[in-house]
């Protein structure tokens, strides 16, 4: 089975982020970078498919040199190829451009299954996987929590999340799947994996060689400003003991017309 995983590197949002002076981007110096958490589910699922059916995994990312750290961790987690599409501009690409580039590269690789994260936790667009599928004219099932692939019939059964439940869906392969939390529990890299990752060569591709017109890669949306969200007013602690506190709370909620 030929498996492709699209991986993105994101700032660790567990730490405080600072907005740059021009208020268009965050300060990216000296902050921790991690693999997009949803992509961890994607690479884990790829490993499981490879263990079950054999084959190989190619991990692909569009990014600058820094992202090679994340690509190496994919090798440590079982990727047989690691491809970086060189994007040294610090400009943010919208999902439409990123997915055009990824689809163009994937087109020239053999694939049965393409795995992406459900969304990237930096900009949270949640678009790239679906768009790759459109450019390749193949099915996409988004936000999956279960994947059962059947190579003999060349199809897949998935559970995807919907409001208030799950849907069981079926599609033919090749297809794109975007990973939701709950799909699996990612493992840690093995020591041998880490050793392999140190040695393996990362393949580097130039966007210029992909045959795009400049207009194809012109962003259609633009961030004009970043700000800290409005702070909520600190409310009040209702002092006292039960049942007075509960009474007072209900009175307040009624007054505020929320119950």
């Amino acid at each position, binding site marked *: 089975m030929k498996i492709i995983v699209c991986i993105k590197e994101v700032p660790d949002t*567990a730490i405080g*982020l600072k*907005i740059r002076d021009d208020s268009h981007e*965050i300060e990216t110096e000296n902050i921790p970078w991690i693999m997009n958490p949803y992509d961890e589910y994607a690479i884990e699922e790829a490993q499981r498919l490879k263990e079950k059916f054999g084959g190989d995994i190619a991990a692909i990312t569009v990014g600058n040199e820094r992202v090679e750290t994340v690509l190496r961790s994919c090798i440590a987690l079982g990727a047989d190829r690691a491809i970086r599409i060189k994007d040294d501009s610090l400009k943010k690409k*919208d*999902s*439409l451009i990123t997915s055009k580039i990824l689809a163009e590269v994937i087109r020239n690789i053999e694939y049965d299954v393409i795995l992406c994260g459900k969304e990237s*936790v930096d900009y*949270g*667009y949640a*678009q*790239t996987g*679906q*768009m790759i*599928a*459109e450019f390749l004219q193949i099915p*996409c*099932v*988004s*936000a999956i*929590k279960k994947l059962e692939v059947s190579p003999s019939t060349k199809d897949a059964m998935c559970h995807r*999340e*919907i*409001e*208030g*439940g*799950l*849907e*069981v*869906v*079926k*599609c033919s392969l090749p297809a794109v799947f975007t990973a939701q*939390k709950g799909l699996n529990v990612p493992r840690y890299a093995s020591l041998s994996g880490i050793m392999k990752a140190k040695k393996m060569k990362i393949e580097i591709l130039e966007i210029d060689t992909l045959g795009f017109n400049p207009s194809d890669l012109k962003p*259609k*949306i*633009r*961030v*004009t*400003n*970043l*700000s*800290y*969200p409005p702070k*909520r*007013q*600190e*409310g*009040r*602690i*209702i002092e006292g003991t*039960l*049942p007075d506190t*509960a009474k007072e*709370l*209900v009175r*307040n*909620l009624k007054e*505020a017309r*929320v*119950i």
Partner: protein
Amino acid sequence: MSNKEIWVIAEYENEGIKKSTWETISAARKLANHFGTKSAAVILGNGIKGIVEELSKELDLIYFIEHPLLAKYDSNTYVKCLHQLIKDKNPVIIIASATFRGKDYIPRLSARLNCGFISDCVGFEIKEGIFLKRYVYGGRLMATLKFEESKPWIITIRPRCFEYKRSGNVKGEVLHIKPALEQQDIMVTIQESLKETGKRPDLSESNVIVSGGRGMKGAANFKLLEELSDVLGGAVGASRAVVDAGWLPHSFQIGQTGRVVSPTLYIACGISGAPQHLAGMSTSKCIVAINKDPNAPIFKIADYGIVDDLFKVVPVLIEEIKRAKT
């Protein structure tokens, strides 16, 4: 802008049009008023006359794309039909809800149209153009975005971020569209829908959410929160600690890696208020925190707090609410 239309793509379930769709309609109206254009809705399906009628009481113009193959949702068939209609009618802005479904097919539609798409917006400002607001970096920052010139523009909006009022007294015109669809157009077939059975509303549409954290101490204790949510007609949610402990399935998780909600009333019981949890609920209109630790960060954002043992507070609260309601 010319007199071209602003569209909403309607979503519905057995009971009728979804609340989140009414919210997109109110967003579309605001934009249409400002630009002096018309707003219209598109609805896709088969044998949904009653639902289309419901929609036509609110809007002047409805495009009803009807076909037996649209009886079940599939992203590719939706995109095929919408793409054709958009090419024919040239709307300037297309708005859908950022529901699971909206998130599934709208990216594909925007790729087929090769047009700008801003997802999961929570608001907008109209100045010299439209400036859309959305949360980024796990809810820690707010970004303002703008479309570059090419049209149409596609926007999805997060449920419960726009107010809506139904008038119900319009007599809208319904234009029937018969798309050319074939069986092969269906790329993903729905085999089965496993809805969590129960009378409680879904998290993203519920007015009230009662949410429990590690302080609940075990799965069985969630009965207490179910009872509280039932007297308020609400839904039950949870922190990640609860989901990780296996007390509730992941679909209950609220926060950065769970559901993002914005109910009128959010009651957090035994939740400390980690930033990743706040990312999923801090836009709630009114937040109540019940926690025995006076220094829990959740109190920093709560409108009302009670510092006490939740197992003592919640039963009394249930009784007080019952009394207040009679």
